């Protein structure tokens, strides 16, 4: 491979693309439309009073009962008392995707009536500032009221009777938009190179452009490499746009670390090669489009693009695990949401190994010239 050749070919790809408004629309504007559409559809869900799950270890006391009804009266939260062990409450909240919880300790009434300091614990999810803020505000208001009305009252020598202790829920809770960003980045890593390469590889052959190129020193790997470079660049731009739109328009919480980058490189590498493979396997541009669609469409919806794979029925989940895009999106989720580097690395390896296999297969199957 010669860099000069790849550079020359890259210019051709970039110019052909930049001068094609339809391609630009689908790569750069379409993702914003998708993110806005799905963001709007799903972000409206759950904007009613934040559900506050409460463990009351001071059962039966009038004081804790009064505390909870005061919270309900704020209308900011809806109180749901649950029977969960206090020590396991944080992880229980996390498992159930509940962003906020409240623990009233045993002896709350006893301490309160004797002016002894007692703390309630508010569990919040730092990633969900909206719910946490609302709940904390409501709890703080009720606590202040209880302190004013304590037996000690407003005397300066009085200690603060009720305090608030903060804790995090067991694991962070994510909003739909948080999953949607890695999903849609995966979506554009899949669609832009696949559709373009399937089309280009079959139509260039039909028009004799490959034969023309075979008469130059450009090699097939260089030709493909130039396209990988272009789609990696395009992916960086479109991922940047989607992350910007997700955070700016919908307040998404994603972590941007360097760990995102390998997926933005290996993903396009894989799908450029796969597009080439599909295009080369077909004899005509029409059958190439058909093969391309058969390969692309299941991945478009079943790899965790718009809906998380864990929400699928078990059979469909198994199917998702054979789709290469699943590993790209899962990897992005692990890096951007869960900070799970180990699993991300496994995902990356799966995509990388598949990419090398598909790239080699594509270069071998893809013929410049006929026998």
């Amino acid at each position, binding site marked *: 491979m010669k860099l000069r050749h790849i550079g020359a070919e890259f*210019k051709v790809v970039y*110019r052909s693309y930049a001068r094609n408004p339809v391609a630009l629309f689908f790569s750069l504007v379409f993702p914003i439309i998708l993110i806005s559409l799905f963001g709007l559809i799903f972000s409206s869900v759950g904007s009613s009073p934040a559900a506050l799950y409460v463990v009351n270890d001071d059962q039966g006391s009038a004081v804790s009962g009064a505390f909870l009804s005061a919270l309900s009266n704020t209308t900011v939260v809806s109180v749901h008392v649950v029977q969960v062990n206090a020590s396991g409450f944080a992880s229980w909240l996390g498992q159930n995707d509940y962003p906020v919880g409240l623990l009233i300790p045993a002896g709350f009434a006893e301490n309160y009536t004797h002016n002894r300091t007692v703390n309630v614990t508010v569990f919040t999810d730092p990633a969900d500032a909206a719910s946490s803020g609302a709940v904390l505000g409501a709890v703080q208001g009720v606590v202040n009221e209880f302190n004013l009305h304590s037996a000690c009252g407003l005397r300066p020598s009085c200690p603060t009777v009720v305090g608030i202790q903060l804790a995090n829920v067991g694991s962070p809770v994510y909003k739909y938009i948080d999953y949607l960003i890695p999903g849609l980045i995966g979506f554009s890593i899949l669609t832009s190179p696949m559709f373009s390469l399937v089309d280009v590889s079959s139509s260039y052959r039909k028009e004799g452009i490959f034969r023309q190129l075979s*008469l*130059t020193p450009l090699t097939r790997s260089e030709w493909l490499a130039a396209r990988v470079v272009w789609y990696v660049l395009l992916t960086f731009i479109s991922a940047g746009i989607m992350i910007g739109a997700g955070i700016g328009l919908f307040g998404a919480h994603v972590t941007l670390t360097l760990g995102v980058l390998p997926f933005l490189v290996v993903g396009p590498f894989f799908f450029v090669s796969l597009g080439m493979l599909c295009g080369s396997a077909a004899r005509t541009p029409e059958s190439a489009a058909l093969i391309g669609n058969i390969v692309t469409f299941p991945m478009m919806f079943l790899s965790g693009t718009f809906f998380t794979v864990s929400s699928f029925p078990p059979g469909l989940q198994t199917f998702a695990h054979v789709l290469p895009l699943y590993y790209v999106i899962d990897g992005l989720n692990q890096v951007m949401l869960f900070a799970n580097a180990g699993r991300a690395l496994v995902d990356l390896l799966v995509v990388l190994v598949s990419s090398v296999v598909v790239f080699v297969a594509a270069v071998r199957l893809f013929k410049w010239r006929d026998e």
Partner: protein
Amino acid sequence: MPAAVEVDGLVKRYGSLAAVGGIRFEVAPGTVFAFLGPNGAGKTTTVEILEGLRRASAGTVRVLGLDPWREGEALHRRIGVIPQEFRFFEKITVREAIEYYRSLFGTAVDPGHLLARVELLDKANARFDTLSGGQKQKLGLALSLTNEPEICFLDEPTTGLDPHARRAIWSVIRSLRKEGRTVFLTTHYLEEAQLLADQVAIIHRGRIIASGTPEEIIRTHGRPSRLRIDGPPAVADLLRRELGLAARADAGHVEIELSDKHDALRILAAIDRSGLRWDRVATEDDTLEDVFVRLVGQMDEGTLKSEAPA
């Protein structure tokens, strides 16, 4: 000097169909070689085998001493090719296309100079999809020259072009020859071959039916020169009667085959003596086109054998 192109016993089969059925020819370096034939004769198949785009089923092919199929990479640096109906990246401009080829071949040719040579400089910044057929073909020609090739393969470079564009391409072909490059031209415009080619081979149904210089082919396969005199049918009767010549009368003129050029003088003297009315006098010779049409026709009737492989 070794031949630029050597072909011996070349066969190309597609399934049971033999597109090329055992042909042999050589092209001397620095000459223009025209490969003629009706559509479907096997011209393009042969050219593509020479360019290394197709694999021969049997026979030997050497271009610049290289096997085009096995040593294509080395060969492609030394040859230039315009395929039939040249196509390129639609959104790329003419100048960008030249620069692209220049980077691929690593040559330092000046794009402006190259475009001026093919009369395309005024379209340097036009995108490929806005070019006319002739302009596209000229770009193809310019691209094929980016690597300063020793042999240029031009597959029907002027098909469908207007006379002006055709002449522009002819003038480039002539200048290539002057520079000592070999030109391998396929065409079905016989006049083009007659005008440009040093050597011609006519292929039909996968076999070569005539080869040599255009003059040699006409001499070997053409009819004798003819004398044509505008005048009444009585002139033909007179010549048959007095000179025993096979004169043919046709709408307002008389035609006599000249097996001996001195017959022309006797014919004119006889007519003059007779007092019959006569007018314009001309001699007519077969063109390459006449020969071509007749050879192809004879072969289709089964009355002509292909040239025996020497």
